[in-house]
C-alpha cells in the first residue's frame, strides 16, 4: 500500500457546509461520490485510485455536517455538485459513484456533463426497474446494521473488518450517514422516478461495475442499467458484494483508472468530450 496521505478541507458553498477529502497530486482526475455509508471503508480505494490522478471525495451535505433543511432529494444534491464542480473549476473528470453515489452521478450527468469526461458507477441505485410490489435494492432501512453488513459483503471477513470498534467521531459519522441517507432516499426508496426518463441525456461514456455476488442490488440490475445508458458498458467483479470499492479496492481502482484512460484515448481520437 502506498503511503499517500489524505487532506481534508472544509467547504462552504452558497451556505452549504461540508468537507472534501482528497489525495494524490496534479489536476483532479476523479470525483468520488460516496454511498449511503459515507466514506467509511473507502481509504484503500481512494489511495489506489490516486495512482491514476488526484482524487477528491466530498462528504455529501448531511454526511459530515448538518444539511440545510431544503436539501431533501438526490436532485437537490446534484445541483450542489454542479455548483461545486464549477467552483473548483473541475474539467474532464471521471465521476465515480457508489450505490447512492452512483445514483447521484447519474443525476448530475443528466443535467450537465460539461465538466465530466466519463462516469464509473459502482452498483448504482437511482432508477426503478422491478414491479410495483418489488424493490431493486434491499430495504436497508428495514434491516439493522449487522444485517446490512452481512448482506453487503461477499466475504463475511470483509464485513467484520469493516465493523471494528469505532471512536466517537466514527460513531457520529455513522449516525449522520444513516440520517442523511434517509433524508435523500427514504421515499421513493433509493430512486427518482424522473431519472429513468432522463437517462438519454447522459452523453458521456459510463462503466457500470457490480459485484457478481451483490445481494443489495443485483449485478443483473447493473447489466440492465448499462443497456439503458446511451454509452453504457458493464463489468462484473467476481467474489464481490455491494461495495466493490471496499471489498475489491485494488481491482476496482485499477478498473476505474483503466476505464478513464481508454475513454481519454478514444476521446482524443473522436475529439469528443473534454475541452
Amino acid at each position, binding site marked *: 500500500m502506498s503511503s499517500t496521505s489524505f487532506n481534508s478541507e472544509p467547504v462552504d458553498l452558497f451556505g452549504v457546509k461540508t468537507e472534501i477529502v482528497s489525495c494524490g497530486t496534479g489536476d483532479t482526475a476523479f470525483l468520488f461520490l460516496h454511498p449511503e455509508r459515507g466514506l467509511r471503508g473507502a481509504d484503500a480505494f481512494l489511495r489506489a485510485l490516486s495512482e491514476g490522478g488526484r482524487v477528491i471525495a466530498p462528504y455529501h451535505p448531511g454526511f459530515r455536517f448538518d444539511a440545510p*433543511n431544503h436539501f431533501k432529494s438526490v436532485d437537490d444534491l446534484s445541483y450542489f455538485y454542479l455548483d461545486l464542480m464549477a467552483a473548483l473549476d473541475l474539467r474532464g473528470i471521471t465521476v465515480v459513484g457508489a450505490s447512492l453515489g452512483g445514483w447521484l452521478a447519474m443525476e448530475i450527468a443528466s443535467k450537465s456533463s460539461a465538466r465530466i469526461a466519463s462516469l464509473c458507477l459502482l452498483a448504482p441505485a437511482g432508477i426503478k426497474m422491478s414491479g410495483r410490489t418489488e424493490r431493486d435494492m434491499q430495504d436497508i*432501512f*428495514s*434491516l*439493522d446494521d449487522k*444485517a446490512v453488513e452481512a448482506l453487503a459483503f461477499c466475504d463475511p471477513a470483509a464485513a467484520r473488518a469493516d465493523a471494528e470498534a469505532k471512536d*466517537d467521531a466514527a*460513531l*457520529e459519522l*455513522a*449516525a*449522520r450517514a*444513516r*440520517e442523511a*441517507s*434517509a*433524508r435523500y432516499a*427514504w*421515499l421513493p426508496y433509493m430512486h427518482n422516478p424522473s431519472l429513468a426518463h432522463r437517462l438519454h441525456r447522459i452523453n458521456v461514456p459510463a462503466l457500470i461495475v457490480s459485484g457478481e455476488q451483490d445481494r443489495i442490488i443485483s449485478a443483473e440490475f447493473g447489466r440492465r442499467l448499462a443497456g439503458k445508458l446511451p454509452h453504457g458498458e458493464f463489468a462484473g467483479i467476481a467474489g464481490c458484494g455491494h461495495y466493490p470499492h471496499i471489498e475489491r479496492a485494488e481491482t476496482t481502482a485499477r478498473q476505474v483508472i483503466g476505464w478513464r484512460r481508454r475513454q481519454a484515448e478514444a476521446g482524443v481520437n473522436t475529439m469528443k468530450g473534454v475541452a
Partner: protein
Amino acid sequence: MRVFYFSEQSYPDAWSLPDQSLRITLPNRNCDPKIANRLYRRYHDEWVEADRLGFNIMINEHHSTPTCLSPSSNISLAILARITTKARLLALGVPLANRTDPLRVAEELSMIDVISGGRLEMGFVRGVPYEASAAVNSPLRMMDRLWEAHDLILKAMTTTDGPFPFEGEFFNYRNVNIWPRPMQQPHPPVWITSSSARSMADTARRRYIAATFLSGYATKPLFDAYRAAWREHHVSEAPADRLAYMGMCAIGETEAEARRRAAHCVATIASNSRVGPAFQNPPGYASVADNVRFMKQGSVARPSMTKSGKPVILSSATIDEYIDAGVIFCGTPAQVLEQIGDFRHGVGDFTNLLLMLQCAALPHDETMASMNLFAEEVMPHLDAPRRGHAEAAERFALAGRA
C-alpha cells in the same frame, strides 16, 4: 381532577405467539376478523360504561400491530361521539407527522366535535419511532412537520370567511374552507405529548395541554420545563389543568388481585420492545448526538425513575419497580389513591390523569370491575388527595377489605 379512561383496544391472542415481533412485521394472517369484530364491540361497550361512571375517555392509534386495533384515532372518536353523552373525548393522539393530508384531519376532527356536541379534546402526537417504517413520510424533522400540520388545522378551524391558500414547506393546499367548522370556539382544546424539555417549552408557549406517557417520576423535570417556559412566556404560574400524565392502573379488591391484573400492564409495556431492531430507532428520529449515545450504550431505552430517583428501564423492570416509579398505580383503591397522591406531590400538581385501566388481555369482566372500583372508591377522593386518602382507607378498613 379529570380522569380519562384509556384502553388501547388490543388483540390479546397475538401476545402468546412465540418469538414474534408485535409491531410492523407480524403478518396479519394472525388476525381473525371475527375475533376483532367481537373485540371492537366489547371495547365500545366498555366506553359506554366508562361514560356512565363519570370517566372521560382517551383513545389512540397505532399501525401494523395487534397491541392496538385502532389504526385511526378519528374513527374511534367518531364512534365515541355518538355512543357517549358526557365524557370529554381525547385522541392522544393523531400522529400528525405521519399524516400526508392534515386538511382531512381538520375536516374529520371538526365533524367529530360537532357530532359529539363539542366534547372533543384534540391531541396531536409526533408518532412512535417504529411506525415511521409503516408510514409514508420521512422520519426526519417530524416535529417540524407536526407543527406545520397543526398550523394548517388551527387556521382551517378558525377561518370563517371563505377559502385561503396554504403553501407551506411540507403541505400545500389551494382552497381551504372546511365544513362543518368545530362547535367549540375558537377551536377544541389542543394537547401535545412531550418527552423532552424542549417540546414541553414549545407546548407551554402555545398554552396547550402537555401530556407525558409512562414517564414515572422522571415526569418532574418535564413538567418543570413546562412550568419554567410558561413563566417565561406568560409571566404567571402554569395552571395545573395544562398538564397531564398517562399511567397504567391495576386495581383490585385485594392487593393480590391487583397484582394479577398488573401482569397485563407489564405485557403491554414489554410489547413496546417487541419490535425488530431496525425499526426501534429509524434514521433521523433521534438527533445525531442521541444516536451516538444509543450506539455507545447499545440500546435506545429511555429510563424512567422511581420516587427515590432510581432509574427504571421500561420494558425490563419488575412490577414493584413500575409501582415505585409511578408507571403502574397498583393495589387496592386505598393504595392506588395513595400512590396517585404521592405522585402528584412528587411531580407537582396536574389535573389530567390518563389511566390505562384495560391492558393487553385483561378480560371484560375484570375491566368492568376495575372501572367500577376506581369510579366508586378512588375518583371521588382525587380532588382532595390527603383527606380523601384517609377517608377511603378508613372506609376500606371498615368494609374489611383492606
